[in-house]
């Protein structure tokens, strides 16, 4: 039931596309407001509280556009599913119509229409299946939100953490390649 509600809500999204964009912004802004409020309650000045909330949140514009992108992708998936369902209904309707007349198909034209409907349905289903892999942690996140673990500075920031930089020698070999050829 909840899934049906969710699909119906998503189907309504193109009509309220602008509103959905504003909803994302409202949601993100509300988060920053709450963090600012808590910072003030903890004794920060309003300016410091707001600056800290923004810093903790990260790049607002980028996060908003990533969210919008995800929402659009999801919407595209729902639209594909809707189209596929429409083809199924059409195909079933045609099959019923034909089976009520005579079996097997008498009219070559109707048979070809049915085959083409089923073919399109298969294509839609394949598109839906190959859209994206399922499961947690296997989708590459946008660069700004990649989480790392490692030695962090006392402030907890990753900015100062050492980052691996590939070093190549004069022959263009990586350290690993160099090690292997040195061992030989």
């Amino acid at each position, binding site marked *: 039931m909840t899934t049906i*509600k969710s699909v119906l809500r998503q189907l309504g999204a193109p009509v309220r596309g602008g509103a959905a964009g504003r909803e994302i912004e409202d949601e993100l802004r*509300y*988060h920053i407001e709450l963090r600012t409020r808590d910072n003030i309650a903890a004794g920060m000045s309003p300016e410091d509280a707001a600056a800290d909330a923004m810093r903790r949140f990260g790049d*607002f514009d980028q996060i908003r556009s990533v969210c919008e992108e995800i929402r659009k992708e999801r919407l595209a998936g729902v639209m594909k599913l809707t189209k596929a369902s429409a083809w199924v209904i059409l195909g079933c309707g045609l099959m019923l119509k034909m089976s009520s007349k005579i079996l097997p198909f008498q009219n070559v034209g109707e048979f070809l229409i049915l085959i083409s409907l089923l073919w399109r349905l298969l294509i839609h289903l394949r598109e839906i299946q190959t859209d994206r892999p399922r499961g*947690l942690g296997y989708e590459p996140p946008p660069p700004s*939100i990649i989480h*790392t673990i490692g030695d962090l500075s006392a402030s907890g920031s990753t900015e100062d953490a050492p980052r691996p930089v590939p070093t190549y020698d004069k022959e263009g070999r990586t350290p690993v390649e160099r090690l292997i050829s040195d061992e030989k």
Partner: protein
Amino acid sequence: MAQSKQNLIQGTLAMLILRSLARGPLHGYEIVQRIQQSSEDVLKVEEGSLYPALYRLEGEGWVEAEWGASENNRRAKYYKLTRAGRKQLAVETSNWERLSEAIAKVLQTA
């Protein structure tokens, strides 16, 4: 001694979000707080990164969102776990436990 905060390993944020929502609907800010409080402030969530993760989980059908009134009477978007999300949480928790056990074994023996 200053306690260093650990950023999350990639992929674990989604699992932690699902776990946070297992007790009931929460809005984004509450989810961040729940994760930080449950980890006794050890885990640090880059707060903005929560939302793309939430939108992906919603796309997978593991959480669903609904606008409601927050405790201070503001409009807030509340997320709740779906039945599929609950199943996924069980799968991910079991995977995580196997992975951490394996790492612990390596650390003990290597």
